[in-house]
């Protein structure tokens, strides 16, 4: 019974896990495994408590009578023994009871036999735990809240950088994204996914900038390669320790002391110039050149360190985005309740006026789009490109561009667009009727299949950040 209850709880946990995504459990296991193990432990504890509980002698006698077929012999003997007046009959009963007890086999009376249903439930529970234990971990086992905090920190750092650059619009958008990460319920699921995608795009852009910084570091390293007196700098740069390289430059400047001795050759000058952040030359003073080059390297180091932190948050962000995508995938095929949206006031009614043989169908198309979004794309739109689950971008804006206008050939009426032959028209049938759309008016739209399909470089769009990270983060890759 208890095992069946544990099994039921485990199945419910699996369903919850499938519906809401994997939850972290104890000891790095998933929530389901933790729940199942705790349930089995609970069963074991209850069983131990029941076994260790003392049984009254009357109940023991009744059980022995029933199981051993003694026909109330022990019960009667026990009761008669407690009577104040002994009798020969009571003694006979006691003697017979004692003789019966001597030949009793407790294992036969109370056999430790597990019912078949319990065996079945226990087997299923063990299989369930084993399957979940050995199943692949789709997400890291760190807490969801910690991932969100890491991601928010990274995006907040990006927002701060945007503020330092003076890009107020980007800063506002990134702060909005931080808010969306920290308070997941504040936005709709679609908006949440778009916010995460925007954050990932910002991190990718930041990675590109970091790649340029690494180029500078490589230039400095290349320029100082083989130069006498700069071995410590090149060694630090080879270790990708830019901060140590800057310190080595400072040490070199301090050690050389005199300006005459500190005059570098052309290669060193190029290296020092490459290390300087500003476009203006470092000046003629050698000490000043070393100092400014060291400052430039330190700034590079700071940016690269920041990039490392951002990348760490970026992984959490990717995990969050993947979790959201899985949740969206689990909804595919389900009929969501239609979300009724009011028809925009600027759009004409579907049965709008017929102007010069051309029917303005913007309102109808917009209403069709809302309907298609509501029912999950069952009906399809007039072009056949239903976007009931847009992943990125503003789908409504795309549709407005996509469906500028269309020309409908009224039955029996003479068309004024004779040039629109069959090859230049899109024909579609929807719940609202038939329509023909000029091919030139149908703009290509973003589709999920585009995201999934590999391009010429054979890398799917959603895998590109991973590949880019691999090549733009040499320190992390090298440290593994």
């Amino acid at each position, binding site marked *: 019974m208890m095992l069946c209850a544990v099994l039921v709880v485990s199945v419910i946990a699996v369903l919850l896990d499938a519906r809401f995504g994997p939850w972290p459990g104890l000891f790095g296991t998933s929530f389901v495994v933790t729940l199942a193990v705790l349930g089995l432990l609970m069963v074991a504890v209850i069983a131990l408590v029941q076994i260790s509980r003392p049984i009254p002698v009357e*109940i023991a006698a009744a059980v022995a009578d029933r199981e051993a077929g003694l*026909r*109330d012999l022990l019960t*009667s003997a*026990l009761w008669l023994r407690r009577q104040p007046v002994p009798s*020969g009959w009571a003694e*006979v*009963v006691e003697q017979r009871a004692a003789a019966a007890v001597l030949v009793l086999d407790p294992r036969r009376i109370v056999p430790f036999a597990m019912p078949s249903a319990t065996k079945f439930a226990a087997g299923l529970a063990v299989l369930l735990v084993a399957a979940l234990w050995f199943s692949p971990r789709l997400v890291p086992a760190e807490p969801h809240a910690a991932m969100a905090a890491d991601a928010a920190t990274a995006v907040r750092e990006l927002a701060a950088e945007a503020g330092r650059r003076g890009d107020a619009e980007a800063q506002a958008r990134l702060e909005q994204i931080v808010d969306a990460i920290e308070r997941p319920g504040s936005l709709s699921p679609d908006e949440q996914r778009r916010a995460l995608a925007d954050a990932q795009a910002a991190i990718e852009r930041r990675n590109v900038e970091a790649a340029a910084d690494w180029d500078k570091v490589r230039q400095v390293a290349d320029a100082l390669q083989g130069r006498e007196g700069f071995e410590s700098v090149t060694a630090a740069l080879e270790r990708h320790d830019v901060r140590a390289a800057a310190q080595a430059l400072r040490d070199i400047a301090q050690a050389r002391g005199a300006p005459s001795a500190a005059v570098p050759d052309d290669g060193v000058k190029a290296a020092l110039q490459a290390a300087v952040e500003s476009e203006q030359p470092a000046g003629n003073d050698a000490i000043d050149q070393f100092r400014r080059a060291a400052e430039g390297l330190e700034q590079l180091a700071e940016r690269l360190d920041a990039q490392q932190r951002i990348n760490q948050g970026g992984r959490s962000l990717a995990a969050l985005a993947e979790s959201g995508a899985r949740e969206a995938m689990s909804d595919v095929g389900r009929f969501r309740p239609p979300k009724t949206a009011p028809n925009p006031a600027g759009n004409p009614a579907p049965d709008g006026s017929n102007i010069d043989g051309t029917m303005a169908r913007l309102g109808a198309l917009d209403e069709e789009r809302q309907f298609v979004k509501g029912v999950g794309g069952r009906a399809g739109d007039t072009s056949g490109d239903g976007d009931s689950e847009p992943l990125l971008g503003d789908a409504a804006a795309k549709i407005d561009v996509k469906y500028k206008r269309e020309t409908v050939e009224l039955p029996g009426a003479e068309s004024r667009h004779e040039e629109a032959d069959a090859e230049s028209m899109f024909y579609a049938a929807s719940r609202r009727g038939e329509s023909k759309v000029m091919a030139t008016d149908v703009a290509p739209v973003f589709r999920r299949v585009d995201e999934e399909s590999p391009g010429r470089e054979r890398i799917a769009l959603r895998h590109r950040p991973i590949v880019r990270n691999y090549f733009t983060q040499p320190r992390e890759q090298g440290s593994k």
Partner: protein
Amino acid sequence: MSTIEVAQRIAQFQKNFHLVRDEVARVIVGNDDVIAGVMTCLLARGHVLLEGIPGVGKTKLVQTLADVLHLKFSRIQFTPDLMPGDIIGTSIVREDEGGRKYFEFQPGPIFANMVLADEVNRATPKTQSSLLEAMQENSVSAGKTTHPLEQPFFVLATMNPLEMEGTYPLPEAQLDRFFFKLKMGFPGVDALHEVLDRTTQSRDPHVERVLRQGEILEMRDTAREVPIARPVQDYAIRLTLATHPESEHGHELAKKYVRFGASPRGTQALILGAKVHALIADRAHVAIEDVKAVALPALRHRLLLNFEAEADRVDADAILTRILDQLPAG
């Protein structure tokens, strides 16, 4: 009483019982449970009501039992014109040597150890009632004198369940006086062969007298001494209460079909019958199994069913069987 004496009395009880049963079985084919039930009633100081269709051996069973037990036997054929005096006897005028007349009580057929009241439901209630005092008090009042009946006094009444025309059904109070109500069923093919072989040949089966009057009384005393534990007695009480529709322990079937449940006399019959059954099974104590074994004959005639039971053709045996199946032991 020492344990050895107890063991001896149990052994003697069993031996005597099996002697009687085997001897009766030489005449009566089948119906072993009925024979055991009659013997149980006799040893528990009760009276038995035998119900069965004509010709199944009710009267023959009683006659055979009387022969085997070496008891005074009398048979009363109940008819509508039977008077109480025909049963208990009358005072007649006698004359002594001096010519003075006086009344002398002439005992009726009730003054026997075993009385067969054949087709008891054919007599009037007045005559039936004359049997009540004898069955309950083991004495007969005639005029101003009460005449005790010789022990063992054992009434076996038979009743035909088919012919109800011109009969006087026994009132509940009188039915309650019967310790057991036993049903004699129609014999099967093999038993019928045996009956024909025994009764259609030139020589009738003969039985021996195997038990004396004193031995029967001793067996009665032994049966009363069997101890019963409180949990077993509690089961008998709960079983009785389960037949009461108004009781909190009443079974759902009793609440639906029973108008009045079994009386305390029914519980007494359960316990005493269970004691005899325990001794027959070589037990020195009463088990719940013994109570269950005697529950049907002890209680079936003590349930007064309502109209719904009549309409649904539910009898007391069905109700009691269901209660016995569902009543927990502990």
